[in-house]
C-alpha cells in the first residue's frame, strides 16, 4: 500500500516537508499522524483526498493522494 501525502503553504513550512509517501493508513486523520509523526493538527487545517475536499474521518485507500493545507486565500 502506498499513499501520496502533500502539505501546502504555511503548513508545508511548519511541517518542513511538501511531499512524502506513507505505506499504510485507514483514514485521512491517520495519514496526518503518520506523515507528521503526530504533530499537533491546527484546528483550521483542510484535507483533500484525490483532489476533492474530505474529512479527517474519510477512509483512504492504496494509491490515494492526501493533501493538507491551511484555509485558502486565492482570488
Amino acid at each position: 500500500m502506498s499513499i501520496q501525502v502533500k502539505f501546502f503553504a504555511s503548513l508545508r513550512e511548519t511541517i518542513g516537508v511538501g511531499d512524502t509517501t506513507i505505506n499504510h493508513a485507514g483514514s485521512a486523520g491517520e495519514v496526518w499522524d503518520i506523515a507528521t509523526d503526530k504533530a499537533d493538527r491546527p484546528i483550521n487545517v483542510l484535507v483533500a483526498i484525490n483532489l476533492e475536499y474530505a474529512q479527517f474521518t474519510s477512509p483512504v485507500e492504496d494509491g490515494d493522494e492526501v493533501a493538507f493545507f491551511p484555509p485558502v486565500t486565492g482570488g
Partner: protein
Amino acid sequence: MSSHIEQQTFDPWQAIVDHQQQSALANQFGATASFIGSMRDFNDNTDVSHMVLEHYPAMTQRYLIQLEQQAKQRWNLLDTLIIHRVGDISPAEPIVLIACWSAHRRAALDACSWLIEELKHNAPFWKKETREDGERWVENNTDGL
C-alpha cells in the same frame, strides 16, 4: 467554458477580448459581466511590496472546471472564463479574472458574483505577502468588504 492558471502577468481585458473573438456566440450574448481582482500595494494598513501565490495544481485545475460546470447548471450562461495567476506577483498586477456571458443580464451578473465567492472560499490557492517587516502568509480571505 475555459479556465486556466497563468504563471506570468497577463492582460485581463485582452484575455476577455481574445476569448470573446474565438467564441461562436458573437451575436447571441447581450450581457457580459466580469470581475478582476488585482494586487493592492497595502493590506491591513501595511505596505505590501510583493506577493507569491502558491497553489495545488491538479486540484486547482479540477476545482475550476467543476466550478464553471456548476455555474452553467445554475444559470443560463453562454460562456465563462476564469484565469488565475500563480507565482511572483507585483502590485497592480491582476490575480484573478472571471467573465460570464449570457443572453440576459442577471445570469451573467449573478454567476460572476457567485464564481468569485466560491473561488475565494474553496479554490486551493495561498498568498504569501512580502511586507516591510518580512514575509507573511495571508491568514484568511476577507469577506469582500
